[in-house]
């Protein structure tokens, strides 16, 4: 969808934009808070008009993210004749989606958000009374606790629910680069609460 022309840019420098929300503690970066910051890469495409870049950066500042770097390729154009921009930011984990929503609502075309966020994959097999112990709850707990996302699942319960026999499920999870070992640890802990065994790859291997 082509992006709408954006409204006139805020003339103030980007680093002072957040002063607008100075009284809104929720929108501040951690600055002494204990929230962990996460790095993200966002690729945008901008219409070649003055003020576009600044407009695109405002949602980042408004949501309390730190701008780490901007790669603005003014010389090259995307297939749609726009200018590709890559922005590296860091922000508390729960702010990232808000930033993307704001960007989109301002008509900024987000081409790719965080290809690196889930850089690794890990496959595990769960064994136990998976259906009777509420598999969707187990999956939710795994996602919530490990920060990994379940990419797909295959369940095999040949004896059916309610049977004494164990069922199995193969999960493929997307995890942040370098975090598969801790994701597996978390899955083991979550699964243990329901007496579910986890067959995982060797540490450090996918």
């Amino acid at each position, binding site marked *: 969808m082509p992006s709408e022309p954006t409204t006139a840019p805020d003339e103030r420098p980007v680093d002072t934009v957040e002063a607008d929300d100075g009284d809104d503690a929720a929108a501040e970066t951690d600055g002494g808070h204990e929230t962990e910051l996460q790095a993200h890469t966002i690729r945008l495409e901008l219409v070649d008009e003055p003020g576009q870049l600044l407009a695109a950066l405002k949602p980042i500042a408004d949501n309390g993210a730190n701008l780490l770097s901007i790669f603005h390729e003014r010389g090259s154009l995307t297939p749609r004749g726009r200018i590709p921009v890559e922005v590296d930011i860091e922000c508390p984990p729960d702010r990232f989606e808000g930033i993307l929503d704001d960007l989109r609502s301002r008509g900024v075309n987000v081409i790719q958000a965080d290809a690196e966020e889930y850089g690794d994959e890990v*496959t595990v097999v769960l064994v136990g009374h998976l259906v009777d112990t509420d598999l969707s709850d187990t999956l939710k707990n795994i996602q919530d606790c490990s920060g990994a996302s379940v990419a797909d699942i295959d369940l*095999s319960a040949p004896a059916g629910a309610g049977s004494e026999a*164990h*069922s199995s*499920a193969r999960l493929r999870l997307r995890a942040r680069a370098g975090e598969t070992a801790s994701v597996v640890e978390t899955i083991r802990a979550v699964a243990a609460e329901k007496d579910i065994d986890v*067959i995982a*790859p*060797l540490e450090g291997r996918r």
Partner: protein
Amino acid sequence: MKLGVLGAGAVGRSVATLAPEYGHEVTALADSSAAVVDAGGVDVDAALARKDAGDPLGDAEPGDALAGEYDALVEATPTTLGDAEPGFSHVRAALERDRHVVLANKGPVAERYAEVRELEADSAGEVYFEATVGGAIPVCATVDDLGAKHVSAVRGVLNGTANFVLSRMAAEGLDYDHVLAEAQDLGVAEADPSFDVEGTDAALKCVILANVLREADCDSLDELREVEVTLADAEVEGIRDIPGSALELAAEDGRTVRLVGEATRDGVNVGPRLVPENGTLSVTGTRNIVEIDHEYAGELAISGRGAGGEETASAVLADVARLE
């Protein structure tokens, strides 16, 4: 070299039988109830024939074999946990007499590693234990040759029974109980298979390897005593609860499940792991494999028969050769 052989099970009898071929002489052979002792050389075949006929090996007491004349004691009695007795006392008795000890019994080096090393330090005798890990596979010798200091991890499939069960389950789509019964019929699994399928046997082997790795960083026996590992320190999970469906799901994804043990300086971990179906660790049947991670050499793998009388005896006799 004159060998005193304690234990006349599959390994002990193979060592005694093969010893002459390696240029050694058996001067004592004992099982748990009797012994045959002769400083001039025991007639091994005759003694084993007596045992097979249901008679004692010889007229002597088992203790006479321990006290007999030998250069190296081959300790091949069954592995015991906890205090590792009577194996540990056998090791002590031989070392106190300044004799060498070659272990096939895992107990003393898995449960009382530092004590064994202390006894060795006070003795003119040396202790080797290649046969305790991976049967015929030269794991300890390879780690030693490579320099244990530079080895960060040793991992592998170290139990043939568990591997037979898992690979049959995967290949035939059969359930655990079915394959186990088959393994018992074939003599691959014991009547009580718990030692193998619960991961204890693999864990003992990994504990021994973890001790070897940690020992490489120690400058004194005191330090070794501080860092030694025993079975109680190992995290162990067996294969008993794995349903056929888990292996099917793994196979659909190009993987399979193997009981993998891993020894690092951090400790010992044994449990079912997902491995690539065509990867190094997915050996089939009773075959074992060991992977060594080395600082400079990278990853090395040695595969072979991890159990069996003659196979394990070959490792015992390789150790005896190191003593010459």
